[in-house]
């Protein structure tokens, strides 16, 4: 049914429709609206056969989900940013134990400096943990992907993280088509684990594995991630049959047919990219957009064939590895090492800075003219950088970076401004 609804409420409804059995949560912005709505659903009795546990930390939140999942219950939690880092030991553990937990990550920057707004630093911090990581472009995507995630997780015994941009999606009211309970039940059968903590058939879960078998355990984990690629194609098809809208697959493609330049992003910025592509197409630039939905497992073959005809690839990435560069562009560059296009990293939208249509267009224009560097910080405010340098130490004010960083800026100048 079509509704005007906040992203978080839509996700809460989708999670509720998935009949979770244990939900645990600890408050952190911007995911709180989701678990608040779920707690109301459980407490009011609207969501039956479900336990809602208010825990004392994110570490406990995911640990409770681990226990619940190992005992055979469909388990869900949500977090963001610092909360994800606080539970990171359990993030790796859940994947290692092969527990099909679904977690919303309402993507948010990581401090210091403390920042509650959106970027993808949190998702990148756990990209190697062994979870499947999906990114929602819209709130429709976000709602759909949660139902989808339970199915995918349980089919493969792998935890799934559904990424949705904090505030930009979680707090935005949009039109969302929420499915009926009958549709969800037709798509998502009850969770029936092959192995769980059962007194009738005792198992030991979480044994110590030494050098003689650890490599094999990791190899199998990698194999399962690769299997996920074919599972995703199959589940996409079934999802389309049940809900009448087929998910985009590994990524969405927009005006890619003859594109020389391709703009790539994950999450809500994809919509902006599409707008900018329209603008640049009007000016005669042959540009297209690719919105990556499936980040882990990384659909390398599909990305290679989608991008191999282009001349340059602009990766608009909301995270940055200091001392190296963007993580997403590195993955894409590794995928394209044997084919032509040059991969440009456009670091954009950190800590909630809007990725605007105009800025995206300016980067595409620079690329068309061959003027775009290999790494660019989009919309870098040079006057703010200068002020940080000149005012620091001379006036009583708050500092985000400390004097040492300002000194470096002073001596070397900003890199790759607009």
């Amino acid at each position, binding site marked *: 049914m079509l509704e005007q609804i906040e992203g978080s409420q839509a996700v809460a409804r989708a999670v509720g429709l998935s009949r979770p059995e244990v939900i645990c949560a600890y408050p952190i912005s911007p995911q709180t609206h989701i678990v608040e709505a779920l707690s109301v659903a459980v407490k009011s009795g609207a969501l039956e056969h479900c336990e809602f546990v208010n825990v004392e930390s994110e*570490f406990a939140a995911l640990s409770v*989900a*681990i226990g619940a999942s*190992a*005992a055979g219950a469909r388990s869900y939690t949500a977090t963001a940013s610092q909360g994800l880092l606080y539970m990171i*030991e*359990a993030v790796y553990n859940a994947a290692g134990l092969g527990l099909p937990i679904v977690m919303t990550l309402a993507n948010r920057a990581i401090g210091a400096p403390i920042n509650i707004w959106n970027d993808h630093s949190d998702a990148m911090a756990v990209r190697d943990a062994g979870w499947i990581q999906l990114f929602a472009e819209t709130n429709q995507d976000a709602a759909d992907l949660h139902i989808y995630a339970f199915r995918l997780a349980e089919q493969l015994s792998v935890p799934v993280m559904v990424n949705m941009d904090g505030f930009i999606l979680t707090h935005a009211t949009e039109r969302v088509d929420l499915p009926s309970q009958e549709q969800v039940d037709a798509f998502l059968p009850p969770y029936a684990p092959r192995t769980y903590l059962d007194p009738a058939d005792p198992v030991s879960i979480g044994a*110590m594995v030494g050098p003689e078998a650890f490599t094999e355990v990791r190899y199998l984990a990698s194999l399962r991630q690769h299997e996920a690629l074919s599972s995703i194609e199959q589940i996409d098809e079934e999802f389309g049959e049940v809900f009448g809208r087929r998910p985009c697959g590994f990524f969405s493609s927009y005006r890619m047919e003859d594109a020389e330049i391709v703009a790539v992003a994950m999450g809500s910025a994809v919509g902006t990219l599409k707008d900018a592509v329209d603008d640049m197409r009007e000016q005669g630039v042959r540009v297209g957009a690719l919105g990556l939905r499936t980040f882990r497992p990384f659909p390398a073959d599909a990305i290679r064939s989608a991008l191999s005809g282009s001349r340059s690839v602009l990766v608009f990435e909301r995270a940055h590895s200091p001392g190296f560069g963007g993580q997403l562009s590195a993955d894409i560059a590794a995928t394209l090492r044997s084919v032509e296009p040059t991969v440009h990293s456009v670091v954009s939208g950190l800590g909630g800075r809007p990725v605007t249509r105009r800025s995206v267009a300016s980067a595409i224009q620079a690329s068309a003219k061959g003027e775009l560097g290999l790494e660019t910080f989009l919309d870098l405010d040079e006057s703010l950088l200068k002020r940080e340098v000149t005012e620091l130490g001379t006036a009583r004010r708050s500092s985000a970076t400390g004097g040492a960083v300002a000194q470096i800026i002073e001596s070397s100048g900003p890199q790759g401004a607009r």
Partner: protein
Amino acid sequence: MPFQPIKFYQTGSFVVGNRLLSEDQRSVQSSQARTNSLTLGHRACQGCGEALGARYALDAAMRASGNQMVVANATGCLEVFTTPFPETSWQIPWIHSLFGNSAAVGTGIAAALRSKGKQDIRVVAQAGDGGTVDIGFGPLSGMFERNDDVLFICYDNEAYMNTGVQRSGATPPAARTATTDAVGPHPGEDFGKGKNLPLIAMAHEIPYVATATVAELRDLEYKVEKAMSFHGARYIHVLVPCPLGWGSAPSDTIRLSRMAKETGLFPVFEAEGGEVTSVSKIRHRLPVEEYLRPQRRYQHLFRPQPDTQTIGRIQAIADKNISRFGLLNGEPK
């Protein structure tokens, strides 16, 4: 198989042999129906108090639950010596997740069972002292505070033995560990540090808290069975000597456990809803020196000559416990 009574004595103790008791009074361990929850083949050291305590506690919990039980185990010796892949010594459903989260994993299992209407299956979470009083304390306190239906058992050997005997928040004053070495002007652990988890558990006003030692295993069984008669959060703190970490003879594990109680250094008691309901009285009061001397972790207190001042400070701790809990006969509680 014909019934064959098992003779079960603890020589030198006050425990009555099972043969002299009626069947319903005999220990869980004396029964052929015991579940051997922790069975043979594990890699614990000789004289390991933790293996002994875990076996008795879990078999008692199994009987009390009608064999309907799930266990969450923290990282530590108990986890390492029981489950070297692909082997396991557990004959019960058992999970190890992380060092600091066994209480939270227990909470999750209990929540799963409740959502599925399977409350007849009971949950036990367990850890060593590090996984209880230090790294696992947050989730444990959360589990207590929410009164989740989990029995948490701490096997306290008073240091991080699995990683090579480092100091924990349960390490007693003057004890030598690898990180509180017997060097400098104040050798061993400092006085005035450490936390008393049974009292902290009681402050949460959970239904049941008890302490026990592996010297009185029938008492441990009784307390586990009692704990299983309650729902909600329950806590049992078991003193389990570690020959490796304490520098004691493997054959002294039971004797040292008894001495810890008989000196007053380890009060053995029960509490319900935050109030002490019973204490195990000291039968033959011993000076702390007799408990300290057989342990190499305290040898700096006796060489080159006895450090009477430090021994006196440890005696004062025992004396305080004795008056606080009324551990001597003739005293209340």
